[in-house]
Structures are given as C-alpha cells and as structure tokens.
C-alpha cells in the first residue's frame, strides 16, 4: 500500500466513523426547522449555519453522509452480486449463454446510464415517502449497474474455464455446480471485491446527480445529492461559503475511493 493509499484509507475510515456517530454528534434532528433563522450563518448552535427552510446544515450533512454512504455500498453490493452470478456463469458455461449475456451487456453499456435510470424511474411513482425513495434509488442503481462487472468477471471466468486444475477437477467427476462454487468462484473473489470497490464512487456520483434532478432521494431525507441542490442559489452560497462543505466532502470521498484503487476508471 502506497502512502497516498494509506492517507485515503484513513480519511475514509474517519468519515465512516463520523457517519456512525451521526446520531450522537448532530445538534438537532435533520428535519427540524428553526424558523427564526432561515439561511442563517455559522453560530455555536448551528456550526455550519441553516438552510433556506431553517434546518441545521450540520445535522443534515451528517445524516446525508450516512444515507449516501450506506446507499452506494449497498447498491454496489447488489450490482456486484448480479455481475458475479451472470459473469461467472457466462464465462464458465460459454456458448450461447455467454454470447447472449455479453450482447445484453454490450447493449446496456452502449446506452448512456442516466437515460436508462430515468426511463426506469419514470415507470415508478414519484410521490413516495423518503424512505421508499431511498429504496427505489438503491434498487435502481443496484439492478441496472452490473454491466461493467459482468464483462470483467466473464473474461476472468473464461480464463479459468480453460485452466488445467479445472480440467483435472472435471475429469475426476466434479459436477458443474460444484465446479462453479468450489473452484471458479473462489478464484474470482479478488475480482468481486475490486468490482465492489470500483462501483461505490460511481453510485455516489449517480445518487448525487439523480437527487439534484429531483429523481433520487426525496426531501426531507438528506443525502449528498439533496444537499447539493442548494447550490442553485449562488447568493446564499456567497453569504455562507460553509454550504460548500457537502460538495467538498463528496469530492474527498470519491477521490479517496479513486486513490485507494488507483487503476480504476470511474464513469458516470
């Protein structure tokens, strides 16, 4: 591990600790309004000030961090599981199944992802409770974000399919299911971890984009995307520059994920 990777890992750990301790650290519940101080500046009661509706910005930031940093890894886990199942089965079985899976993957990869997300989101109700919107965002990203994982895992599984040890296992009467579970999957495990880590920053950015467009996590539930919506009001931003903290935090987290895994390509 290089020094840069160590620093990135430490920063990520610190932010995770903040996320866990959000309930203890927050000055007020995230939805509580202080109607006498809308757009308030930093004070002892509200260290980061308040938003246009008079809600404490620090509370919203801590809870928003918790929502975004739980949502993205959960979606990454779901997409990696789908990618691992499809990719390893396609690479291991080969033939028509592999061709069909790769054709569908290529097709999905050719389509701009946001168009796909918007189409699926349009099919679901928009006027939903905040918690349901979190679940919808998690399911959408997890169920639609497996394509890149499938390609990589399929290519690796194809390499294992032709390996000597698998030939030996096959010749000693190992059943396909056992081959897949006991011999192929354990060898692909580092790749699964890698795909999981690569997907997290991608999903963090996607959630931010969706929420800014009003199609992600719904108010009053905070998330980094929801908090970034306040940037449209530049006069309030100029009056209280601490409103930039959610963006700075998001950039730091995504950069840390990039530096922890330096060879990745983050695509939106």
């Amino acid at each position: 591990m290089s020094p840069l990777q160590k620093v990135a890992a430490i920063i990520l750990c610190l932010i995770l600790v903040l996320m866990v301790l959000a309930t203890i650290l927050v000055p007020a519940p995230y939805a509580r309004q202080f109607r006498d101080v809308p757009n308030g500046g930093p004070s002892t009661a509200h260290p980061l000030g308040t938003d246009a509706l008079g809600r404490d910005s620090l509370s919203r930031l801590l809870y928003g961090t918790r929502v975004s940093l739980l949502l993205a890894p959960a979606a990454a886990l779901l997409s990696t599981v789908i990618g691992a199942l499809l990719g390893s089965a396609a690479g291991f079985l080969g033939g028509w199944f592999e061709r069909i899976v790769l054709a569908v993957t290529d097709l999905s990869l050719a389509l701009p992802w946001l168009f796909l997300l918007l189409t699926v989101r349009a099919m679901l109700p928009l006027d939903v409770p905040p918690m349901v919107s979190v679940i919808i965002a998690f399911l959408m990203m997890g169920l639609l974000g497996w394509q890149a994982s499938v390609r990589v895992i399929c290519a690796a599984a194809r390499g294992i399919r032709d390996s000597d040890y698998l030939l030996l296992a096959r010749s000693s009467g190992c059943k396909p299911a056992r081959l897949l579970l006991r011999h192929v999957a354990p060898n692909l495990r580092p790749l699964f971890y890698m795909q999981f880590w690569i997907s997290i920053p991608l999903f963090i950015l996607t959630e931010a984009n969706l929420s800014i467009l009003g199609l992600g996590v719904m108010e009053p539930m905070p998330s980094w995307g929801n908090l970034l919506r306040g940037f449209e009001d530049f006069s309030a931003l100029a009056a209280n520059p601490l409103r930039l903290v959610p963006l700075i935090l998001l950039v730091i987290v995504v950069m840390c994920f990039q530096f922890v895994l330096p060879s990745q390509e983050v695509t939106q």
Partner: protein
Amino acid sequence: MPFQRMGKMTKHEKAAKLFRHASRRLLFLFCLGIGGALLSATLVRFAPGYGVQERELDPRWSVQSVEALRQKQALHEGLLLFYIHYISALAHGDLGESDSLKRPVRELLRQRFPVTSNSVVRGLGVAWLAAALLASLGLGSRGWLYEASGTAFSSLLLSLPSAVIAMLAVHLRTPVFCAISVVVFPRLHRYIRSLLVGSYDQPHVLAARARGLGSGAIFWRHVLPVAAPPLLALLGVSFAIAFGAAIPIEALCDSPGLGQLAWQAALSRDLPLIVNVTLVVCLVMLAANSLADLAGRAFAGSTQ
C-alpha cells in the same frame, strides 16, 4: 510473383472479413431496433394509466369526437393488435404522442435532437483536443510534478457530479458544450495518456528512437498506428458519456435538447416520450459504436 498474389489475396480476404463484420453489425442493429421497439411497446402498454383518456371528461369535446376517441382506443385494446399497430406506426416514423406535452414524439425529437447533437459534438471536439494535447505534452515531460498535478486535476474533475458542473456553468454563464467537455475531458485524458505511454514503451518505438528517428516520425509512423484502434473505440464510448452528461447539464442550464426532454418526461412520468427518446439515443449510440469499431478494424487492417 506468388508473394504478390498472396498479398492481394490477403487484402481481399481482409476486405471481405470487414464487409462480413459490417453486415453482421447492421443485422444486429436491425434486430436490436425491432427488439427495442417491442420492449418500448411493452413498457408503454403496461404503464400505469395507459388507456385513460382525460379528454373524454372535457365538456368542450363533442359526443362524436369522444366516440371517435373511444373507437381509436378500441383499435389498440388487444395485446397482439397493439404490438402490430405500434411496430407498423414505428416503421412509418410515427413514435406516438407525448402524454404531457400533447405533441407527436417525432416532432419533439426533430426539434430537440439537433440541439443536443450540436452541444455533444462541440463538447467532444473541445474535450478530445484538450485531452490529446495535454496527454501529448505530458509525454515530453514525464516528471513527477506533471504526473501528480495531472492525476490530481483529472481526479478532481472525475469526482464532481455532472449536475454540479452544470450549476457552475450556469453561474459562469458558459455554453452547454463547455460543461459537456469538462465532464468528458478527464476520462479521455486518463485513457489517452495511458494508451500513449503504453505505445511509446513498445520495443519497436525504442528501436526507432535508437536509430535516430525524429519524434514526429516516431509518433506518426510507430505510435499512432498502435494507438489508433483503441482511440477510435474510445471515440464511440465518449459519445455515450457525452449524451449521458447532457441530461443534467441541459436540465440545469435550461438548454432545449434531448437531455432536458428526457428529464421533463421522467418528472411528468411521460412513458411514451421517455421510452422513445431512450430508444432513439440507444440506436444512435450503437450506430456510433459500430462505426468506431469498423473504423478501428479498417485502420488496424490497413496498417498490418
């Protein structure tokens, strides 16, 4: 002489192979169009609220008009009939009507597509130029400072959501294509740089340098032929990135393009519109990728 004949045969074979590949791609696109149309029809048919005609409740509509509406609706009641009507209408370029805007989707696409394609093409042009220039400059000076600053800058841009870049573009009053180029640039820069570094590290380039060839000659004759096919593939991929970035950028910059149309359709749950916009974008992306793939293969074939 036999060698010459063999060479000619190889060229013919290469051309035939390329033609076969192009035909397969075209067939794939056609099948995909049909499959996409069926999927679109299914999504529209089973969307919540399908078949509900609010116009029937409008007191300004005459009895005859309401009856005509009902008869038109009855034509599409059976599932098989619906699919047949949908596909035949699609074959005639009829993409249906937008539920929210009450206008033909085809007309909306005709209006909006040039706006987005103009922004995307200009944005890609700027992004490619900047990425190629910076990557080439970086090859001349492979110092740690340049490397670190380049990595930090592209990582910073990669960490910004495209919607935030769009908000900055609104604030700075920059055109939409500039915001698109800022989104695409870091991805291109990273890839082009690693590709060029990999090409320059090839043994044949080292041999050419040892023989005293100029840097220009090395680049054009030895580096570019190796790097061109993946670069052409990247061109196809960059179209998808730029179109994806167009949604938040056009929505927030109030640019009347496809991205804004898709966003408005999603917000108003206008499925006929969003599904057809996505279908058209998907076909355009696949055509661009196929063209890039064919160009890469043709280039690789001609340089071998």
